[in-house]
C-alpha cells in the first residue's frame, strides 16, 4: 500500500495542477470580438510576446513601444475600427512561454503575434502557434535553427545569427585584427547558438572558451581564464545583464582585450551594469539599422511618442506590427487570411523591404557594428 500512496500523491497533485492550468488559460477566450452587424471585424488584437519584466525587460519594452506606435498610428486613421495591443509578458523565460502561447491562442480576438522576442522562448512557443495557425513575426529572435522546423507561421524581420555570427567574426579578424580570441557564452538558446557560429567562423583563432550562467554575478574564474590566455578580443554570446558585469570585472582585473558582443547586449543596461568607464570601446553587432537611418518619419514619430530615441529593435517591432496592420486594413481579419497575407507580403518597411522566403526569413539582411563611445551606443560601421 505504502509505495502506491507515495507514487499516487504526487501524481494526483500534478493532475490537479494541470487541470487548474487548463482552466485559467481557457478563461480569457474571445472578449467581445465582433461588433454587431457591420461587415468589418473590429476590436481585433495583435499580441506582443516577450520579456516586459525580468532580467532582459529593456529589450522587450523597446520592441513593444515600436509595436504600440504602429498600432496607435493605425488607430488614428481607423478611429471607427480600432486594433489593440495585447501584451504577453514571458519574462524571457522558455518555461513560461508555452502557457502564455496557449492563452494567446485561446483568445480568439488575437489574430497575430509580434514575437516571441527571444530565441529560447520562440523554440518553446512557436510549435503551439504553428499548430493553431496563428501567425508570428519576430522582430528580434535570431537563432538560425528557428526557421528550419517547417513552422508555417514563423516569420522574422531581421537577419539571423547565421549572418550575424560570421559578421562578428569578420569584425574581430579584419577590423580588430585579433589573432587570439576567447569565446564565452551563457548557455542560452540564443547565446550559445551565436557563440558557436562565431567560434566556427573564427576557427583556429579561438584559443579559449568558457560558459557562464544567467543570473551569475561573480565571473572571477572566467576573467582569470581570459586574462591568463592573453587574448586580444573576447566574444560574449548572451544578454546585457551578465555581459555588463563580466566587462566590469574584466576591466577591474586589468584585461585589455576588446569585448565584442551580439544584439542581446545592445542596450543601455549594459553600460549601466559595467559602468561608463569599463563599458567604453565595447563592440556590439546587430542585424538592426541605426535608429536614425530608419525610413519614413519613424525616428521623429517615436521620439514624439516616448520622449526617447528608438532603441534596439524598436523599428523592427514597428515593422512587424505594420505588416499585420496592413493585412487587417485589407480585411484579412481571420487568422488563416492574415497568415496567407503575411507570407506573400512585399512592401518597404522602415528598416528594409519586407518580404519573406518560404522559411519565413527576410529577403534583405544588414548587419551593423556599434561601439560604446562616451557611455553611449553609437553606430560604428556596416559589416559587409
Amino acid at each position: 500500500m505504502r509505495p502506491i500512496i507515495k507514487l499516487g500523491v504526487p501524481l494526483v497533485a500534478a493532475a490537479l495542477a494541470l487541470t487548474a492550468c487548463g482552466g485559467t488559460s481557457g478563461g480569457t477566450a474571445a472578449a467581445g470580438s465582433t461588433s454587431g452587424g457591420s461587415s468589418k471585424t473590429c476590436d481585433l488584437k495583435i499580441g506582443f510576446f516577450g520579456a516586459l519584466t525580468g532580467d532582459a525587460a529593456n529589450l522587450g519594452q523597446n520592441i513593444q513601444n515600436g509595436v504600440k506606435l504602429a498600432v496607435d498610428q493605425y488607430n488614428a486613421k481607423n478611429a471607427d475600427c480600432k486594433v489593440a495591443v495585447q501584451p504577453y509578458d514571458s519574462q524571457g523565460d522558455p518555461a513560461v512561454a508555452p502557457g502564455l502561447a496557449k492563452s494567446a491562442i485561446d483568445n480568439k480576438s488575437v489574430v497575430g503575434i509580434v514575437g516571441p522576442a527571444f530565441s529560447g522562448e520562440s523554440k518553446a512557443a512557436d510549435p503551439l502557434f504553428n499548430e493553431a495557425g496563428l501567425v508570428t513575426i519576430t522582430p528580434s529572435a535570431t537563432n538560425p535553427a528557428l526557421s528550419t522546423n517547417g513552422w508555417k507561421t514563423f516569420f522574422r524581420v531581421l537577419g539571423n545569427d547565421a549572418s550575424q555570427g560570421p559578421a562578428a567574426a569578420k569584425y574581430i579578424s579584419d577590423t580588430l585584427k585579433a589573432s587570439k580570441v576567447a569565446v564565452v557564452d551563457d548557455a542560452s538558446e540564443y547565446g550559445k547558438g551565436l557563440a558557436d557560429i562565431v567560434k566556427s567562423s573564427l576557427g583556429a583563432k579561438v584559443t579559449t572558451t568558457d560558459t557562464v550562467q544567467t543570473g551569475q554575478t561573480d565571473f572571477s574564474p572566467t576573467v582569470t581564464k581570459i586574462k591568463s590566455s592573453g587574448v586580444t578580443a573576447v566574444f560574449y554570446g548572451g544578454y546585457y545583464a551578465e555581459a555588463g558585469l563580466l566587462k566590469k570585472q574584466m576591466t577591474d582585473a586589468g584585461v585589455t582585450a576588446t569585448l565584442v558582443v551580439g544584439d542581446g547586449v545592445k542596450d543601455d543596461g549594459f553600460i549601466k551594469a559595467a559602468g561608463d568607464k569599463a563599458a567604453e570601446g565595447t563592440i556590439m553587432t546587430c542585424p538592426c539599422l541605426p535608429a536614425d537611418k530608419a525610413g519614413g518619419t519613424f525616428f521623429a514619430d517615436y521620439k514624439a511618442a516616448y520622449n526617447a530615441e528608438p532603441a534596439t529593435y524598436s523599428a523592427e517591432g514597428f515593422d512587424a506590427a505594420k505588416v499585420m496592420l496592413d493585412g487587417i486594413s485589407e480585411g484579412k481579419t481571420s487568422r488563416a487570411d492574415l497568415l496567407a497575407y503575411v507570407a506573400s507580403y512585399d512592401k518597404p518597411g522602415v528598416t528594409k523591404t519586407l518580404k519573406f522566403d518560404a522559411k519565413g526569413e527576410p529577403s534583405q539582411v544588414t548587419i551593423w557594428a556599434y561601439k560604446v563611445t562616451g557611455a553611449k551606443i553609437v553606430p560604428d560601421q556596416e559589416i559587409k
Partner: protein
Amino acid sequence: MSFLINNFFALTASGLVLGAVYGLIALGYTLVYGVLRLINFAHSEVWMWGSFAAVWSMTAVGATSGRGIGATAAFLLLALVAAMLVSGGIALTVERVAYRRLRRLNAPPLIALISAIGASFVLSEIIGLRDRIAGWFGLDSALAKYVGGARDNTRFPNPLETSTAFSVGDYNVTNIDILVLVSAIVMMVTLDQFIRRSRLGRGIRAVAQDSESAALMGVNKDRVVQITFFLGGIMAGAASLLYLMRIGVTKYNAGFLLGVKAFTAAVLGGIGNVRGALLGGFVLGLAENYGSALIGTQWKDVVAFLLLVVILLFRPTGLLGESLGRSRA
C-alpha cells in the same frame, strides 16, 4: 589541471573575497538558527535592502570616486552605516511581523518557514515594484533617481575607484579585494568575541542552550531574539556594501542566489556556529573557483554542492559542527 596550477593564486584570491561575503551573510542564518532553531529565509532580502540603502545613501549625497582619501572614507562610512541600519531594521521588522506571534503561539517550525518565505517575497517585490509604489503617492518622477528601472540592475556609485595594490604572478590584487577580505575578517572576529565575552553574548548563548532555564535565570528571551536578528542584519548590511564595492550592481532579486550560497556556507561550516560561517564561506568560495577551473565555469555550482553533500555525509553537523550555545567563554 595545468590551468588550475598556473592560476592558483588568482583563483584562490578571488575565491576568498567572494567567500568572505558569503561568510558575512551566513552569520545571519547561523545566529538565528543557533538561538531559535529555525531558518530565516527572509535573510537574503535583509541583505538586499541593505544593498539598496548603500546605493541610495550614495546617490543622495552625490558620491563619486576621486575626491581624496578623507571624502572617500566618509562616503564609505556613510554607506556602511546606512546599509547596516537598514538591514538591521529590516531584520527586526521581519522578526516582529513574521515570527514573534508564531513563536508565542508555539507554532511548529514549518509554519515559521512558510512565514519567512512569504516575508521574503514581500520584501523583494517592494523593491521590484518601487516605481509603482512611489507612483501611488505621485512621487515617481520626483524620486526617479531612486525608483527608476525598478526591476533592472541598479548601479552603486562607488566612491572608491578600483586600483591595483600589488600583483602576484598574473593576478592584480586590488584595493577592494584587500578591503573586503580584511573588513570581513575583522567583523567576524568582533562578532565572535562579542558573543563569547560580552554580557549580551552570554544571554544569547544561554537562550541558545536552553531558553526556558535562561528565562528562569532572568534573561529576557524576546530581547535576546531581537538582538540576534539585529546582529545578523547588520552583518548582512556590511556584506552588502562589500559586495557592491566588488560587483557594482544590485537588483530586487539579487538576494536569492546569494542567500542560497550563504545558507550553504552556513550549513557547510556547521549551522549555529559563528566561526563555522566564515570557514564555510571560504570553503565554498574556493570550491566554486577551483571547480570551475578544473571542469568548466558552468559546473561551478555542481562542484560546490557536491562538496556540500560529501562533507555532510561524513560530518552531518558541518565542518566545525558545534552549536552556538556550546561555545563557552
